[in-house]
């Protein structure tokens, strides 16, 4: 069974929801990224999204853009990221998902990219600029390799949700707002009706992402979903500290705080 599905079924049987956290590979450097992922797992993250830095990330706001630029300046490359994943897989079974723009995969070679991802121990891939109209070829290849293509839905998707989640696996990434990534103070969307409508089309877990920045916000949204995704707020913590061990301490505190927002299950 794919690690993502295993994780969600385990959480479900314990009446828990998933905390999914994001990190840009190579910011500040590959070695530290591995430590960040270890630290996040230790602090209670259930699934880690590893961002492959891209020069022109259309779906990302200033925080992740800057993070990607820092990583690229530091010379991060896809083979280094694959090695990082392999390193983590030596001791950890935490589900790992790539967040990668389509051109990175396309230019690298779809088959090579997927093959190396699989061999390294990647469980799923999110492609923020690949709508269902363009996904047939890659989703077929991924199915054969047992890597899950995580579908994204947005508040504007409406009737499209039905086809987007058809045959979906892993979880549905529910974009919380119309906008790009970035920590926000509140989510304006009527989450209840949005998430209910997604649930009417699929039984697989639904995770909310974009804009979620602290435990208080998690408390507000958690009843509508099976998991929350935190990205820019994590990057903000990582980039705040110059000293790595200080950063890791604070990051762990931050992640366990996020986790606490999630684990207060209403009886």
């Amino acid at each position, binding site marked *: 069974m794919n690690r993502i599905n295993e994780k969600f079924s385990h959480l479900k049987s314990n009446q828990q929801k998933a905390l999914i956290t994001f990190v840009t590979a190579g910011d500040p450097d590959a070695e530290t990224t591995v430590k960040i992922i270890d630290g996040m797992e230790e602090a209670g993250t259930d699934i880690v999204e590893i961002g492959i830095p891209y020069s022109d990330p*259309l779906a990302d706001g200033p925080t992740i853009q800057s993070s990607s630029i820092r990583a690229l300046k530091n010379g991060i490359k896809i083979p280094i990221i694959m090695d990082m994943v392999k390193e983590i897989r030596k001791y950890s079974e935490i589900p790992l998902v790539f967040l990668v723009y389509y051109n990175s995969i396309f230019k690298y070679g779809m088959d090579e990219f997927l093959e190396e991802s699989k061999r390294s121990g990647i469980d799923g891939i999110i492609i923020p600029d690949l709508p269902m109209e363009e996904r047939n070829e890659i989703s077929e290849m991924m199915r054969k390799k047992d890597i899950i293509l995580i579908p994204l839905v947005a508040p504007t998707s409406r009737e499209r949700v039905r086809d987007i989640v058809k045959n979906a696996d892993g979880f549905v990434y529910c974009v919380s707002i119309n906008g*790009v990534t970035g920590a926000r103070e509140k989510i304006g969307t009527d989450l209840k009706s949005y998430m209910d409508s997604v649930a009417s089309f699929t039984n697989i877990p639904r995770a909310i992402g974009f804009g979620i920045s602290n435990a208080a916000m998690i408390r507000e949204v958690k009843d509508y979903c099976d998991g929350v995704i935190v990205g820019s707020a994590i990057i903000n913590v990582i980039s705040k500290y110059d000293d790595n061990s200080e950063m890791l301490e604070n990051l762990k505190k931050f992640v366990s705080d996020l986790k606490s927002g999630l684990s207060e299950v209403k009886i």
Partner: protein
Amino acid sequence: MKGRFGKFGGQYVPETLMNALIELEEEFESAIKDEEFLETYRYYLREYSGRPTPLYYAENLTQTLGGAKIYLKREDLNHTGAHKINNVLGQILLAKRIGKKRIIAETGAGQHGVATATGAAKFGMECEVFMGEEDVQRQSLNVFKMKLLGAKVTPVKTGTKTLKDAVNEAIRNWVANVDTTFYVMGSVVGPHPYPTMVRDFQRVIGDEARSQILEKEGRLPDYVMACVGGGSNSMGIFYPFIEDKNVKLIGVEAGGLGIESGKHAATFYGGSTGVLHGMMTYILQDEEGQILPVYSISAGLDYPGVGPEHAYLKESGRAEYVYATDQEALDAFMALSKIEGIIPALESAHAIAYATKLAPTLGKDKIMIVNLSGRGDKDVGIVSKFMGVNL
């Protein structure tokens, strides 16, 4: 396949935009068949922009070069000084039809920004233009014009701070405001339906040129030439000639400091297939698909991609793509000013540059149409700086 030119084109955008693109496609397809819409569009092209633009026989240039007969399609005589207004009028009328009151646009040289700000002023819409910080400095005159016209100009500080990043930022802004906002894309780039829609709003250049040359010469030209940034003025003039197999179509890209220098924007020289700004096309990228910084003296050609239909015309062999360097474009800029009394935009000077190379190699019985996509007022500052003259 829908929205594809061979393997090129498509819709590689965040899901949030998909319903907006589908709606745009439906509205565009119904508008372009609606006689009333077309009548209104033609009315503004005629009465507001001053179309048809002349197809001018450049007698002095022809005689100086001593070869093929050169005609200039005078898009520089449009209101706002370039072909960009053709497309803007079409898209703004479409925005009105859909009921959107806020429009956004990206701009490089500022010509598309000025045209969009002009249309927004005329039709009473709120307008925000995204422009790379570097271009804001290179094209300060156009920035001032946009502000005069009531638009908000937002400098883009990310990436290379030029046209590519302005497009990124405009798309991101559209994602955040998709319910209220219409994105007026400035060239035949971006996700479907933009490449098709912008081409259809620019084909008026080629439709006019084709009937004008038939009237003046009684036959079709041997060559049609235009500069290629995103590719809208070239696609506009090429399109009506595509079925005329004996008409050679030549696109001229920006060779910057030369291809070997790596400082250029000639997508077909060193570019490869990839995805940028929602389309699959030729792009300048490294081996991992990171978009490379590009360079040209002309801000309007300073773009690492090209419209997907051009990629298709290139691969099918129907059109040929060449480049002119900064220096060649500057020489052509000077020459056209002195010989014909026409100061061309630096973008258009790239097409003139290649024409001046090709014409002398051809017989006097050959006919060539060069698209003069814009006028050079906006560029006199850059050119004077290059010549070491303080204005």
